[in-house]
């Protein structure tokens, strides 16, 4: 989390179409084209992009593959476990074999690869939904606070301060006692879906202030520009000014904060699983797979290692992608 805030704060408050055209590029390229070109030249960012793109595709494929039975994250394979050793997989490396490429889960014998694969789907869905909630809230409130100023700005500012002063981990943990049940009753869904919805809502509700602060800062400079005056003079409605005039100038910081928030939520999901909050098995998430592997750390190290490694890869690649996008959009930044 700390890393992420520092990155957000170091964003330069330059509007999108600043003096980028003065760089030595050929005349006639739009700023976004220039950014894209800069991004393509950065090898590390391209690698990160490819990695992110590939597991996003894998995550999208997983539900289909589970449905047609290509991967089966739920089937028990007790015959592959050594009952004498307390349910540790037979064979070396946690029961790696042709049909179970990453071995099987101790205790149940479920296929590790299948569970992790399907787990990515759930983990990314939660992270994506939570990021959407926090981004939408943050952007809307940030624009309103920045543009309206005065009492509205002050009120939103106080609410931001208030939200940020809450001890986050404790609240994420403690609120589950009240809200999971409430969600379950209100929406009439099963426990696991309620757990998931709870996670998304709470992460979003505690995540929006950072986005709102960032956006507000940018809007403060945008609102002084002539095109806003023009829009006001032409009698544009508030909503039009917010979403048609201001918002298009904000997509750069929004995109960057989005790519940097996603990985933070993937880690948070894992951390919450460790604290017994969130989606529970048999539905796999990276967090609950990892949580389930703790007791086998010494007896089946690979089973303990793989889920953590996958989380690390997701976090690193998303962060590098976010850095790359920021560098590409902001010619002044320099790694």
């Amino acid at each position, binding site marked *: 989390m700390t890393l992420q805030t520092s990155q957000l704060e170091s964003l330069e408050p330059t509007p999108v179409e600043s003096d980028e055209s003065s760089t030595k590029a050929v005349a006639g390229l739009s700023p976004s084209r220039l950014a894209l070109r800069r991004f393509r030249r950065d090898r590390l960012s391209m690698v990160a992009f490819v990695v992110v793109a590939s597991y996003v595709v894998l995550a999208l494929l997983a539900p289909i593959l589970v449905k047609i039975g290509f991967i089966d994250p739920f089937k028990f394979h007790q015959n592959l476990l050594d009952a004498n050793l307390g349910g540790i997989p037979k064979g070396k490396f946690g029961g790696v074999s042709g049909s179970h490429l990453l071995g099987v889960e101790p205790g149940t014998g479920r296929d590790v690869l299948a569970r992790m694969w399907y787990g990515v789907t759930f983990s990314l869905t939660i992270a994506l939904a939570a990021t959407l909630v926090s981004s939408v809230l943050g952007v809307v409130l940030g624009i309103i606070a920045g543009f309206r100023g005065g009492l509205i700005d002050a009120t939103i500012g106080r609410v931001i301060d*208030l939200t940020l002063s809450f001890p986050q981990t404790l609240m994420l943990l403690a609120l589950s006692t*009240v809200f999971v049940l409430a969600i379950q009753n209100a929406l009439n869904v099963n426990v696991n879906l309620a757990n998931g919805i709870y996670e998304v809502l709470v992460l979003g509700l505690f995540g929006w202030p950072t986005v709102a602060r960032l956006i507000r800062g940018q809007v403060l400079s945008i609102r002084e520009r002539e095109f806003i005056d023009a829009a006001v003079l032409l009698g544009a409605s508030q909503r039009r000014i917010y979403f048609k005039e201001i918002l298009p100038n904000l997509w750069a910081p929004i995109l960057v904060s989005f790519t940097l928030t996603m990985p933070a939520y993937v880690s948070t999901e894992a951390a919450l699983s460790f*604290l017994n909050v969130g989606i529970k098995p048999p539905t796999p998430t990276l967090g609950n797979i990892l949580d389930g592997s703790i007791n086998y*750390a010494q007896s089946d190290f690979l089973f303990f290692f793989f889920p953590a490694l996958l989380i690390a890869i997701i976090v690193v690649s998303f962060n590098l992608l976010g850095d790359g996008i920021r560098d590409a959009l902001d010619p002044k930044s320099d790694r």
Partner: protein
Amino acid sequence: MRRIFAGVIMLILMSLVTYVLFFSGGLHPERAACGKNCSPAQWEQTKKALGYDKPAVVQWGEFLKGTVAGRTYPEDKALAKANPSLVSTCPAPCLGYSVVNTTNVSTEVKTAFPVSFSLAILAFIMWIVGGVFFGVIAALRRGTVVDRGIVGVSLIFYAFPTFWIGLFFLKFFAIQWQIFPVPSYVNLTDSPLAWLGNLVLPSLTLALIYMAGYVRMTRAFVLESFGEDYLRTARAKGLPNRRVLVKHSLRASLTPIVTMAGLDFGALVGGAIITESVFNYDGLGALAVDSVRTLDLPTIVGLVVVLAAFIILANIVVDILYAVIDPRVRLG
């Protein structure tokens, strides 16, 4: 002064929000006090004695009053006179009474605080020293293998989940290979050496997580300062490199580092929930986990308020430090 006032207002607001969130019904915190065979009548009586029958806002009012004046459970003056042993007192600042643990919340917090504080302070020293040191090295060796290595490794530590790193340390460094003792908290006053030895793994876990941000930030600011005119001046007048680095370059990056460090520390003093659970340390974090597990609402609310107080205090201290470090800033 204005800031402290605003901070207190904020805390009062936060306690209200927390009370409404947790005490609006749905949960039955009085259940634990009533014992195993709890008849509905007894249940009602317990509920009344603990004050849980009133609306959340009224309970919040009593909580506020308690923090200033202290309170008694049950709030019944006649009973207190007739049979003092049936009444439990909670002196100011009273944060409530934990039915589950049958103590005052403030006592619980007082017991757990030294553990969390030790952990936080040691981790803090490690990550500041490590973060600034490696950040400077990376900046000086910019673009080389050393630079990439430092940035890469810190990113890797940042990327693995905290509890996984902690468990890895615990299960392998402490249990399997026995390089470090299996951590358990020892009082500083009992044995300073054992205190330190036992704290190495947990605080290292915390420090590694936090360090990544500091390495990156130090590196970025030192690099940025290299381009500044005053640095060229310093070099031009023939100052030794070390002096240029420490007095001119690092000095400029001090403000953002202090900001971030102050806020991180403020949040951490309130207990590292995950690290404490991993290493079984009975600090504020572990207290929080326990109170959630046992639905110990008074403790949860008390903890939220205490931790928020730390965070708000850290904000104020950072603001004041700003003015000390950077003479251009004036306290508003």
